[in-house]
């Protein structure tokens, strides 16, 4: 384990809610009012944006922070960059820190790209000579060479973001604080950002990565914190924490049936399906064990399996038990049935969620829909977009023989 780079020790952060008196004119009547009300009204109207959050990040580690909007993710980064100070507890970044909180925050619209590179570099603490030395690299990484002497107000938002990221990406930090940079820019640029961050990590940079983009978190981070209303709800491996986060979203819409499910993959050595699946290779066989607890009598029911691509919010696949040879289920209230399904992850890289539903065929309604009951993350390096894995490979023109086997040997 590398040196400690980021320390967040039992941090609390309080914000004022209520109205602020931001003019002297309002201040005087408000002060009078406060004097009169003293005693009746307790303390100030405040809320805790962070409550007792602790973590540490060491050199070469990437720490992900996920959670819903307003959970306190950005507050953590603002505390680390010293924009804010904790109300209680202590936090520190040890070493040179490069913050990507808002990558183009220092840009001035009337200055050219070139002038802004120097300004933004100075904001990030670079010396003029350092920036000059890397100037060409910065511009070419951002891909804005033809427009470098154009005022940035004429840039597209993508170009803005690319240039901003590029400046930060050419710093020499010990710690990188990244907030939701993947929200802008096209897929190719997102790839570039992720590759750059992975590179940073391999160079021993400690990364704190805040994102809604769960696949990127799964890809980059070795530890993830889930924030819920300012509290550390869970901290652990990406698999555990993402699953916990998504199961927070998992809904059992009808109460007639309770569903639980486990996703397993083959243990690397043997043939048995034993390992809990999260990280899988394309084409890996997966086994889904579904337990259905009926609370009502049903004459004819089926179990449906749906796979969602969380990266692109796509419905990837849907199938149901009656088409795979499992006869319609007849059950009494209180019955617990177990069904096993097998499928293969012929998918591109990304994070996928499984939905299990139970349908009453006679009444044509869902008895239960369990969204995001299981998740898995497909790791591969060939495709850059899309969902279905077609196993592209280079090949010999005459024989059509693959030069490199891209398709995994499938278990039939």
């Amino acid at each position: 384990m590398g040196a400690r780079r980021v320390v967040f020790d039992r941090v609390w952060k309080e914000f004022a809610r209520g109205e602020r008196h931001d003019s002297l004119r309002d201040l005087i009547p408000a002060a009078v009012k406060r004097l009169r009300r003293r005693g009746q009204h307790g303390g100030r109207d405040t809320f805790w944006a962070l409550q007792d959050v602790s973590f540490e990040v060491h050199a070469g580690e990437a720490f992900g922070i996920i959670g819903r909007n307003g959970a306190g993710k950005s507050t953590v980064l603002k505390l680390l960059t010293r924009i804010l100070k904790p109300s209680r507890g202590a936090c520190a970044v040890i070493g040179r820190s490069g913050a990507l909180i808002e990558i183009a925050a220092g840009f001035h619209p009337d200055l050219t790209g070139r002038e802004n590179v120097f300004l933004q570099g100075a904001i990030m603490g670079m010396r003029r000579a350092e920036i000059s030395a890397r100037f060409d690299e910065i511009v070419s990484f951002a891909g804005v060479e033809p427009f470098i002497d154009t005022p940035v107000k004429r840039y597209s938002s993508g170009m803005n973001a690319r240039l901003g990221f590029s400046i930060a990406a050419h710093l020499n930090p010990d710690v990188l604080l990244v907030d939701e940079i993947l929200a802008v820019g096209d897929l190719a640029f997102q790839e570039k950002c992720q590759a750059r961050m992975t590179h940073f990590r391999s160079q021993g940079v400690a990364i704190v990565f805040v994102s809604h983009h769960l696949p990127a978190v799964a890809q980059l981070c070795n530890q993830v914190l889930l924030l819920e209303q300012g509290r550390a709800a869970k901290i652990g491996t990406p698999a555990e924490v993402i699953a916990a986060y998504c199961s927070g979203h998992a809904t059992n819409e009808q109460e007639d049936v309770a569903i639980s499910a486990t996703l397993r993959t083959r243990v690397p050595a043997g043939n048995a399906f034993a390992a809990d699946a999260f990280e899988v290779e394309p084409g890996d066989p997966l086994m889904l064990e579904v337990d259905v607890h009926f609370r009502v009598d049903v004459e004819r029911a089926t179990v449906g399996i749906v796979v969602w691509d969380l990266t692109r919010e796509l419905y990837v696949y849907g199938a149901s038990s009656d088409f795979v040879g499992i006869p319609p289920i007849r059950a009494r209230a209180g019955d617990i049935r177990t069904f096993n399904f097998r499928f293969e992850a012929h998918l591109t890289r990304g994070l996928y969620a499984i939905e299990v539903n139970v349908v009453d065929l006679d009444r044509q309604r869902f008895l239960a829909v369990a969204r995001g009951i299981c998740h898995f993350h497909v790791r591969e390096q060939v495709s850059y977009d899309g969902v279905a894995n077609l196993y592209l490979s280079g090949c010999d023109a005459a024989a059509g023989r693959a030069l490199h086997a891209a398709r995994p040997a499938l278990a039939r």
Partner: protein
Amino acid sequence: MRVAYSLHLVCRDRLSLNGALMQRLRNDFQEMIREQFEFRELLIQMTARDLLLRYKQTAMGLGWALLSPTLNTIIFSVIFMRVAPVDTRVPYPLFAYCGLLAWNFTASALRFAVTSLTANTNMVTKVYFPREIFPFSAVAVSLVDFAVAATVLAAMMMYYHVAPTATVLLLPAVVAVHATLTLALALMLSMANLFYRDVKYIFELVLNVWMFASAIVYPVDAIGGVAGMVIRANPMTAVVEAYRHVLLYGTPPDPLSFGSAAILSVVLLPTTWVVFHRSEFRFAENI
């Protein structure tokens, strides 16, 4: 890029001992100076940015720096030479330009500084660097203007055959006191306007009154009584008079009034700076 040297435990001030207070002040000053040193490049860049923007956006560019004192000199010359003549030791236009030049530095620096934080909300809430940079660069930009406009003063001195004497060597001291005073006020105003947005309107009024309460366009000896005392107690009067003494009259500045202005500015700058520095972490929440 910053270096965090240690965990900074944050708690409310609970200081009982004087020693502890002194220690904290010393730490504050060390941090303030160190940060300015680390970010010296940014101060230059921000100042350059503001100058560059003015060059780009206006046809006149640095001509603006000359316009205001020149125009005002013409107006006041008409008033105080034709309408209500006053007695000055040097030709009135020279007297007035010298005063307006100095006043203009303070006035434009403060006008710039008062909105320097609130105009850069994006930067204050999203990136970290010492916030002093904003008011400091406002003062630095005005200092450049001041230097540009000073060339006109030099030309006027030649025209009126007013040659500087050895006392011109005291000029750096006068500029230093003037700039220190302006910096202190710039820090105070930018911070005040962040917390209370109507400060900039009140400030405009104060600036108007303040100009006429300083001996900018008329000689201070002309006024007696309470009004005269107020005008003489005003540090801007001391500064403006000091400029005239060392440049135009060839005499050293009045030790009492200039000395007290110097002491005031030397006390005021560290005080406002520490207050500013300690409030910095609340800026992002209150802007």
